[in-house]
């Protein structure tokens, strides 16, 4: 690597990291939080004994998982305006990613709830709890622990998927890299640099995941 390439690498690190800090990371965090809340509701609907509720949840999950995220993003940002609904890039991205996480994480949460042994429900009922209280105080805390590893994976995927937001003009990590690349014509360097920063973020997230898992694993009924 010659001096000028190295200089370009260093000077573009600033805008790329800025894109990560102001775009990628907050976009992922906000979408994940909203998406998880949505996922919990969908998971509980899916587990409901009321047929129409679980039916609605099933269709939602099926659509989210059966259509490309990029298409969902385009429908919201480029499609809805023709129906008179104009949403800015950032909120469009948050909506698309939240809906997406909502579909994938719902299945994770549902599986986690089902993985809690039946005896835990029975003990909760035995001490006089209602269904709702058993769910919130006994079952969900245990399900939460079981879902940490798969949900961490969902989050890591989401961080990488936010790069798609560059296509609806959200200023985030990858769009910053693209702009520097277009200006300097150093495509290989800038795209590799973007990849490197994504990788670094994911390495940090994986190690956080590892710590969380060893902490939480012990308190789960086997």
């Amino acid at each position: 690597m010659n001096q000028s390439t190295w200089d370009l690498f260093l000077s573009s690190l600033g805008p790329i990291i800025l894109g990560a800090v102001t775009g990628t990371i907050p976009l992922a965090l906000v979408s994940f939080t909203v998406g998880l809340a949505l996922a919990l509701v969908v998971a509980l609907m899916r587990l409901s004994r009321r047929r129409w509720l679980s039916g609605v949840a099933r269709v939602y999950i099926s659509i989210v998982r059966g259509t490309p995220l990029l298409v969902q993003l385009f429908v919201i940002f480029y499609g809805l305006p023709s129906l008179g609904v104009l949403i800015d890039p950032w909120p469009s991205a948050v909506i698309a990613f939240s809906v997406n996480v909502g579909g994938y994480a719902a299945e994770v949460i549902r599986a986690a709830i089902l993985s809690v042994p039946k005896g835990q429900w029975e003990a909760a009922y035995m001490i006089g709890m209602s269904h709702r209280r058993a769910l919130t105080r006994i079952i969900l805390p245990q399900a939460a622990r079981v879902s940490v590893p798969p949900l961490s994976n969902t989050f890591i995927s989401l961080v990488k998927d936010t790069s798609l937001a560059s296509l609806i003009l959200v200023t985030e990590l990858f769009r910053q890299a693209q702009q520097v690349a277009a200006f300097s014509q150093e495509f290989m360097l800038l795209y590799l640099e973007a990849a490197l920063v994504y990788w670094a973020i994911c390495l940090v997230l994986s190690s956080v995941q590892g710590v969380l898992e060893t902490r939480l694993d012990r308190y789960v009924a086997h």
Partner: protein
Amino acid sequence: MSPTDLPTDAATAGAPAPAPLLTVRGLRKSFGTNQVLESIDLTVGRGQVLALIGPSGSGKTTILRCLNGLEVADGGAITIGGEVTIDFGRVPAPSRRDLAALRDRSAMVFQHYNLFPHKTVLENVLEGPVVVQRRPRAEVTAEALALLDRVGLGDKIDAHPFELSGGQQQRVGIVRALALRPQLLLFDEPTSSLDPELVGDVLRLIKELAVEGWTMVIVTHELEFAREVATEVAFVDAGTIVEHGDPKQLLRNPTQERTRQFLHRLLFPF
């Protein structure tokens, strides 16, 4: 704490010919086409201990689960404590509230303990009385600490279940049940998932509770224990009570051939 402290018991103390604490009439339960209980009748007086014995799959656990409202029977009636009768035959079927009323009167100790793994020993015990029954935390805590101390777990109150041996976990399970102040204690094979050397502690504790006057229904395969602790033994087979009576009499000299065969198999497994 002993069951005689309870207001319901105090109210009936001295009354002539007290009504039985538990009455079960014609209890029926099927799972799909599998008729698991066919017309079970049981009566347990206050302070009495009924031991249920019988082969695997005969319906013993199902009886306890019906008593605790964990399973909704298809027919028959259960009365605990005289006042509340839940009639499973009637239309409409008993509501959630009926089942909750039934459940409030009894507490169950499970074969596999079923402690809450994300809560400490003390939290496991407090959850019912404080969160569900809304009794004052300070009062319940004092009571819980005394009970835990009594069963030799005074130094484990902040431990989590996974840090305890099976015997210790089951003692927590018993304390959790006692702390609910039930009128009736239900035990489902409380020692059958324990290592042999841990069985004694748990059985000794249950025996103490019997001596103190707790009313109990115990499913067990420990015949010696049943003989010593129970006031009555019932032999359950294929969803019916084949015979019941005085433990010493029934366990030594059963009148029914099926009981005789079962006892023989238990005493001479090979």
